[in-house]
């Protein structure tokens, strides 16, 4: 009988362990293949505020900070003044911010004027959501920021509001 009980407990723990293992395994799979993701990021067709076709590939070779955001998203709005300041400070050294808005063009244009945004703003759509997921944003949250080095390596993926100090630590070694 004691043996029976021991088997029962072992089975329960085994089940729990399997559960944990299967979850963590899923996360590791998404992290792999980030090189291919950058190719997709560079190639993704996006529109500017006037409706013209653009890709992020045009900034290949620069330190690229891709910020997914929206005007209706409060934490996104909080971090943007910091981005404007950093674009001003580090732009001459090869840092390029690009904002991709999951939003309506007129709202984005209005926001751009109001906050004096000094970097390109492009419009994202449903396929941009998929791109974000591929880049590791499984929950599909905003803001979400990718930092890509000059050599096309995905250096950092940042869900949530990004502090100026933290972003500086990430980009300093890349410039």
């Amino acid at each position, binding site marked *: 009988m004691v043996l029976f009980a021991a088997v029962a407990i072992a089975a*329960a723990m085994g089940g729990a362990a399997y*559960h944990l293992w299967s979850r963590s395994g899923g996360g590791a799979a998404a992290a792999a293949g980030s090189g291919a993701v950058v190719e997709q990021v560079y190639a993704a067709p996006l529109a500017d505020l006037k409706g013209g076709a653009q890709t992020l590939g045009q900034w290949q070779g620069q330190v690229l900070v891709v910020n997914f955001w*929206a005007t209706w*998203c*409060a934490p996104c709005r*909080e971090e943007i003044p910091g981005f404007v300041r950093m674009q001003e400070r580090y732009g001459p050294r090869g840092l390029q911010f690009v904002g991709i808005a999951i939003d309506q063009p007129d709202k984005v244009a209005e926001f751009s004027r109001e906050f004096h945004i000094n970097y390109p703003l492009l419009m994202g759509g449903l396929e941009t*959501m998929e791109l974000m997921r591929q880049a590791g944003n499984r*929950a*599909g*949250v905003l803001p979400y920021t990718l930092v890509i080095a000059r050599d096309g390596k995905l250096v950092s993926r940042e869900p949530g509001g990004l502090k100026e100090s933290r972003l500086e630590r990430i980009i300093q070694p890349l410039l």
Partner: protein
Amino acid sequence: MIRDSKSLLGAILLVLCGLAGAAEPELLEPDQAFRFMARLKDARTIEVNYQIAPGYYLYRDKFRFTLAPADAKAGTPQLPAGKLKHDEFFGEVETYRGHLAIALPFELDAGVTPVITLTALSQGCADVGVCYVPHEQKARLSLAAADGAASDVSLGQLLGLGQRAAGADDALIARVFESGFWLVVASFFGFGLLLSLTPCVLPMVPILSGVIVGAGHSVTKSRGFLLAAVYVLGMAIAYAVAGVAAGLSGAMLSAALQKPWVVGAFAAVFVALALAMFGFYDLQLPVALQGRIAAASNRRYGGHYAGVFSMGVLSALIIGPCVAAPLAGALLYISQSRDVVLGGSALFALALGMGVPLLAIGASAGALLPKAGPWMETMKRFFGTLLLGVAIFLVSPFLPVAVQMFLWGALLIVTAIYLRAIDPLPAGAHGYQRFSKGVGVLVLLAGLVYLVGAFSGGRDILQPLSGFRVTAREGEPYTAPFQRVNSPAELDARIQAAAGRTVMLDFYADWCISCKEMERYTFSDERVQARFRDMVLLQADVTANTAEHAALLRRFRLFGPPGIVFFDREGREIRGLRVIGFQPADRFVTALDQALGFR
């Protein structure tokens, strides 16, 4: 002591929660953060529910609801007042946290659409400083279920089901799982508490009292409670493990628990326990086993606990038949979602709920147990009688009514004799003695009525003398004209052949108690038979449980009988109209009318 037991339960549940919680990624997927559920409140209103995870919120002004097909039009949603949140960019915004219910009125132009699809758009954020893009969630709603009695599922109803555990509706229980983790666990704990009121728990009382008495003369309250807790824990873990294993393997555990020889074995155990209660012999573990347990407890302190724990594990088997219905629901969920943690936790909570009275007994260190003396003898006989009743109840689906009546009659008469129904009262009898004799005579009469019923061809256990009624139906009891189907291909062919008639498919098995109840009490009703004449009746007898049978069950995502599925005149399943578990004729007629109403 009650507080102790609560905190122990809390600790156990916390550990379980930790298991589930530790594995969560930092950010929830939107479907998890904002769990969505919709149902028809009535024929004109949809109730949209969101269960919002702690630390997440939804904006009040971002909801959009649309309905498809186009002849269904959504009205203005009735959004409850939200919590005001100050946002430095947007000013005062209203947000929702926790549970949110929105009433959405709608109109139908043509009124023939059987199923509408609700698309709900919502937008929310997490406190950690991220927002989700507007998120689309869909629900299919079957209009047929709108005024059906089976559609409205409230927690109260679900708990009410536990009171008639024998005919409980496992599909409803499967639906409980759509609510949040804690609600599921709490509901199952509630089920367990209700099950503890059924006689199933009775056999555990003598086992546990034996355990506590065996622990020595100086049992303190805390030691008594600890012993009881170990015992209940053993039972609960056995349930969780067995449930998870069975759910993952897809085995029909509830089916196995209802096979005649299994039920017969349980009944035999109950009879054996009852006879022990009557004092025919002393119920003890085999001497060899006792010796080993004693030796183990002498070697180390924990030895006795291990023995008690394993007694708990074994006891889980004894209450098997009682928990078949909630068990089936939990298994259905585990097998479909593979969410082992939630399914296992639910069964664990169920068993803990059933164990609460046992914990109380343990905590009283035997004070609640009958003390030696005539009082204890009476108590034991009372329990014994109840146990015999449970045994008869268990085997009754497999016995002809006459035999059931004979058994009930015999039990009642013997009970009456124990109550001294025919002993003369002494001259100066107490009020208590007189009362007892009165009850005894009543029981004796009831027993006689059952005996007479058994030998006079009574057909209804609730109306034992119906055999005498001149107007009683002649000949054999009614059997519905079912055509047998044995495989998905055969089913398709029959549905095709039905050409324009409504089809009812009934899953049946010899071991299925509610199927027999349906046959005996519901199908035999004249109103039901009148409607049967306009339908094609198919029956899948899955007693043999072949691969074809399994394929049929899987097609309808059923775990086993009971289950009745309807098809409209074009051979499509009418979703939302399934009948799972016993339904009395009144309700079943409503379901048949709805099925016939589909074009």
